[in-house]
């Protein structure tokens, strides 16, 4: 592209995000944070994970957050990690030492309440499902999924993906016209979250419900049992948290004001093309 053309695209404001995308983004940002934090409180009621149909204190757990008389510990398989101060043993806001798994700053509510956390979690689950369904339908109708999210054949070429990974690792994000569209790593991660992680979160959540297991046994069977569903739910939540952290880091690298504005108003100022 000629230097003149670059100058004319960079700095130009384009319309990048539709209303349905923006509305779902912010609704989901709130919902997912509430789900994650109330979910950690629910986990605190029994901080052990198992595989299979059943699992309780006498059965072997593949993950456990616990406390010794002096330390907080995280056990994963045969591995035991000291986590005092963060997991298993921490000091609450009143200065009292607690031996719950996740600390108060990470949970909703702050102080231990399984019933309270379930109220939050099971109400916002409806917001997650209804919001996700509306976004899905809207995005099929306005062709957001087909046009913006579906990768082209060329983008899926290993060489293209590898170059994008190298560019991201160096902090070289697309500029000019290319920045108006999602790059392949964005497309793949958004698709993985929208069609992989979020549906699996909902399915594994439903698989833990005894009423759902009686009515639709295929869900819990597909997941390998109720305790497997609980483990998968926790692993998906961890992956979702990882996505959120990388997503936020990318927003900061790409220019937080421009990025956040584009997700509020839809308008995005094209950054300069990199040399």
């Amino acid at each position, binding site marked *: 592209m000629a230097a003149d053309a670059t100058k004319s695209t960079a700095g130009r404001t384009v319309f990048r995000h539709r209303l349905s995308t923006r509305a779902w983004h912010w609704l989901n940002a709130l919902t997912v944070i509430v789900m994650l*934090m109330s979910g950690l409180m629910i986990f605190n009621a029994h901080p052990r994970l198992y595989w299979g149909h059943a699992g309780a204190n006498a059965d072997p757990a593949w993950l456990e957050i616990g406390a010794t008389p002096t330390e907080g510990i995280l056990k994963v398989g045969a591995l035991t990690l000291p986590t005092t101060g963060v997991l298993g043993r921490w000091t609450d806001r009143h200065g009292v030492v607690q031996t719950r798994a996740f600390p108060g700053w990470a949970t909703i509510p702050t102080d231990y309440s399984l019933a309270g956390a379930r109220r939050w979690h099971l109400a916002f689950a409806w917001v997650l499902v209804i919001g996700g369904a509306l976004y899905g339908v809207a995005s099929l109708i306005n062709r957001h999924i087909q046009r913006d999210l579906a990768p082209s054949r060329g983008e899926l070429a290993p060489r293209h993906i590898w170059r994008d990974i190298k560019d991201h690792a160096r902090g070289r994000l697309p500029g000019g016209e290319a920045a108006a569209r999602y790059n392949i790593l964005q497309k793949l991660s958004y698709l993985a979250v929208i069609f992989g992680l979020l549906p699996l979160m909902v399915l594994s959540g439903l698989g833990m419900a005894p009423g759902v297991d009686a009515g639709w046994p295929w869900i819990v069977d597909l997941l390998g049992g109720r305790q497997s569903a609980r483990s998968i739910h926790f692993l998906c939540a961890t992956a979702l948290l990882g996505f959120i952290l990388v997503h936020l880091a990318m927003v900061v690298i790409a220019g937080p004001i421009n990025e956040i504005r584009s997700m509020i108003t839809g308008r995005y100022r094209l950054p300069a093309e990199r040399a």
Partner: protein
Amino acid sequence: MWSRRRLIGSLAAAPLVTGCDRLTYSEGFRDGLRAAEGLTMAAQRLISNRSALAREFDEADLSPVFRSNGTRHPGSPAYAAHAAAGFADWRLRIDGLVARPLALSMAQIRSLPARTQITRHDCVEGWSAIGKWTGVPLKLLLDGAGASPRARYIVFHCADDMGPVRYYESIDMVDALHPQTILAWALNGQPLPIANGAPLRLRVERQLGYKHAKYVERIEAVASLAAIGGGKGGYWEDRGDYEWYAGI
């Protein structure tokens, strides 16, 4: 380093967390969250078969240890005397909106047709255990007592003292008449242990553990839950804001 991280963390999280805590203790907001319970129950019952059976397992699936939870021993002298006598004088009363109130001994209850089922017990805390339960279908008892068509809920009054009150729970007729809803007197082929609710406990297999009332001494058919305890239908529902519908 720690203090700076903590400071930044609390600055970022403080508005959200204190906001959520404030909402948690606001009755109006909690009523909003509670609306989800009715939605969940309606959706589960609308979409799935109301008489769908909970999965039944094989002997090989039995949990090596069936964990107990909540009350492990009711502790009252009267209960201790019953336990010492092998519950020979225990009576299960069935009353309320019934044509013929009953008082059945354990011998009478064991002589009634029994159902045995190997099911998964799901605690609200998150753990599960698989056990083999034998007991009398609740429907049989309600039919025997002639439950009135006006009865909309079945309340279970228990022998375990929970401070000022005794444990109580309730289910509606959809679950009360379900074929897997039984009053169990045996676990894994043995008389029901005290820790698991001897001599009689409810099994309501499509709901979480706290609905499965232990140490049941009275079954009451009612038209409304308003006059039961705090009016929400169960000990934990009244005291801890747990959901009355525990199918999720």
